[in-house]
């Protein structure tokens, strides 16, 4: 079966969407990502959509679903590289991509994930040293 590969780098999962996805392929990606986040306890997910020439309501909803499932599994999602023409069209279509973090490129997206993870570890440290232990 046709699948979009998921790359694991440390605690992060990276996906580069390089094909004009039909709906079934998008659903498969959503399932694969969700189960992989759980299996490897991923802390962050980065989805690179710079090759995508359109994002319609179905793909938009799929990205939003991935982000909200990741959140439930305690992982942060960032979508990077959306082309300006795609962003303009999405707004006119009426999609706002609620709850989705976006970044300009892979580098800034990775930085965002690292920062969020570092912040979380700080919180954990604070908890470790609190009087209740």
């Amino acid at each position, binding site marked *: 079966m046709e699948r979009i590969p998921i790359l694991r780098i440390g605690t992060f999962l990276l996906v580069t969407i390089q094909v004009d996805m*039909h709906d079934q392929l998008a659903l498969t990606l959503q399932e694969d990502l969700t189960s992989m986040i759980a299996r490897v306890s991923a802390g962050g997910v980065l989805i690179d959509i710079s090759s995508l020439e359109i994002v319609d309501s179905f793909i938009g909803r799929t990205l939003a679903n991935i982000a909200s499932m990741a959140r439930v599994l305690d992982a942060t999602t960032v979508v990077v590289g959306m082309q300006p023409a795609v962003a303009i069209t999405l707004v006119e279509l*009426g999609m706002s991509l609620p709850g989705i973090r976006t970044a300009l490129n892979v580098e800034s997206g990775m930085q965002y994930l690292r920062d969020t993870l570092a912040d979380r570890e700080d919180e954990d440290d604070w908890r470790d040293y609190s009087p209740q232990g």
Partner: protein
Amino acid sequence: MTGETTVRKAETIPIAESNDVVRVRQQVRVLALEVGFSLVDQTKVVTAASELGRNTLEHGHGGHAEISIIDNGVKRGIKMSFRDNGPGIADIALAMTDGYTSGKGMGLGLSGSKRLMNEFELTSEVGVGTTVTVARWK
């Protein structure tokens, strides 16, 4: 859709599975490039094609898309018709409402496509089928 509009080039694409919607998007892109649309306008037209093609597949249980380059003597554009012999739409005003879906969609396909295109026409009869015709001029 106006009286003197001539069709320069037309193509009919069957829509029976989700890969066909990808094919419609790709062919619409080819025509949009030929018309000379800006990247933003190409993106709008292709996105509308994707939404309407998916409706033909999901709600209309399959059908076909007819896409063409149109010319009214002054300017050129793209016209796309999506037809199916599916269940039809009982309440068109409701179906056109932002966010309304009878299934699990976002309810933005019809209303959003209308915003993305210059012309939009929907005819539907319950039990007979649905035709959505849209056009965008350069």
